[in-house]
């Protein structure tokens, strides 16, 4: 069996397009924990996160041509897929199930901070610093949208501010983070 541990992600996807299960297994070895971890964080449910991770890797297997290395790295591509599917799942849930997720995330009193601390230890220091460097209102809007799966309209309702304001906070916050990460030499989600 060919040793693929030295192959680049782009090479692995090319091999997947040629029907190499071993290449898919190597992609899973490299990125499975991140894909599953993000889905688990958004959904707060192991079984649903597993379903999302399965979908993401099966989609890569069935449609590898959807990955375009000129548009970003494979980790970022897979995480984008994982997040989108997790959000689809969370939005299809009954309001009761959704409350469960929110409640679980809010246990131990100041749930928001606990949640954030757990996340802090898992992502890179630079990303934590970039997020914490944002004005509080921008950071809160981004976190409610990304980690809890709310639309920006829902975020506006939760925070009781106009939709246009939230749209602007998200846009400004994301651009600010991009600038910070770029200055630190981080372009997204490189391994």
């Amino acid at each position, binding site marked *: 069996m060919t040793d693929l541990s030295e192959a680049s992600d782009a090479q692995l996807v*090319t*091999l997947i*397009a*040629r*029907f*190499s*299960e071993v*290449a*898919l*297994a190597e992609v*899973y070895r490299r990125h*499975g*924990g*991140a894909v*599953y*971890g*993000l889905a*688990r*964080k958004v959904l707060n449910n*192991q079984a649903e996160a*597993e379903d999302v*991770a*399965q979908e993401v890797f*099966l989609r890569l297997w*069935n449609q590898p*041509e959807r990955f375009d290395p000129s*548009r*970003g*790295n494979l*980790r*970022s591509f897979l*995480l*984008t897929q994982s*997040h989108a599917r997790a*959000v689809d799942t969370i939005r299809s849930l009954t309001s009761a199930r959704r409350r469960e997720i929110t409640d679980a995330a809010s246990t131990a009193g100041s749930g928001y901070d606990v949640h954030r601390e757990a*996340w802090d230890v898992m*992502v*890179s220091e630079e*990303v934590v610093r*970039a*997020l914490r460097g944002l004005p509080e209102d921008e950071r809160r809007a*981004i976190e409610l*949208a*990304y980690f809890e*799966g709310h*639309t*920006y*309209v829902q975020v506006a309702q939760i925070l009781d501010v106009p939709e246009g304001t939230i*749209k602007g906070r*998200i*846009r400004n916050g*994301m*651009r600010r*983070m*991009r600038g910070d*990460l770029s200055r630190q030499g*981080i*372009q*997204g*989600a490189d391994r």
Partner: protein
Amino acid sequence: MTHDESAELLAAMALDALDTDSHARVEEHILTCPECQRELDSLREVASALGNTYEAPPEGLWSHIASRLYETDPAETPSLPVFLGDFDPSRPGDRPRARRARGLLLTVSLAAAAAIIVLGLTLSSVNHRVANLENALASNGHNGVTSALATPGHKVVTLSSTDHRVFASFVLLPDGRGYLVKSNMPALPSSETYQLWGVVNGSPVSIGVMGSSPHAVAFTLATSPAPTLIGVTVEPAGGSLTPTHGMVASGEV
């Protein structure tokens, strides 16, 4: 949606924070706006950095994924004639592509499974890469045959029908590649297909589905040991995991 309206929503889109309707309208705009596409890609990288955490996947997750690789999507009918293309077996992983033969790995012997993984059996009619392969074959197939016949060590195998008529002939190369050289195979109704088999240790192993009216066929034999005999059966369109009828023609390798 105007460019400015789209640009305002890209950051929220990168966070998957648009409702279905807005998402669809931005996507439509992006199709014709490279600037918005670039901006969205860039913002998605930022979003992915936020989500770039790690949690050990549960045991068994990979097994579940692996067990579903060959599931058939009911919405797709494997109707195109085969995996054939101008692949190069000397390149690692360069294999003809075939998809979704449900239960394939579970129902054939280990040797047969290994061969079928490589050789392929059925394919998805919606997989445009297969169409690309077929287009490549259409333009390069003849050159492949010509080149194969000029390759040292090539072997021509003639398949004869049970009434001793020449049914088809193939040229096989030492590296395992093979091509259809000549065919007297009568056209079948579209509900049926010719399927090529190699006999390895007495058992038939699928080489590929050739369609109802084969005229250009390329394949790679990757069984070990090499087949002692190759033969053709008539199968339902899409092919079969094991022959459902006797061979209409065969020839020793």
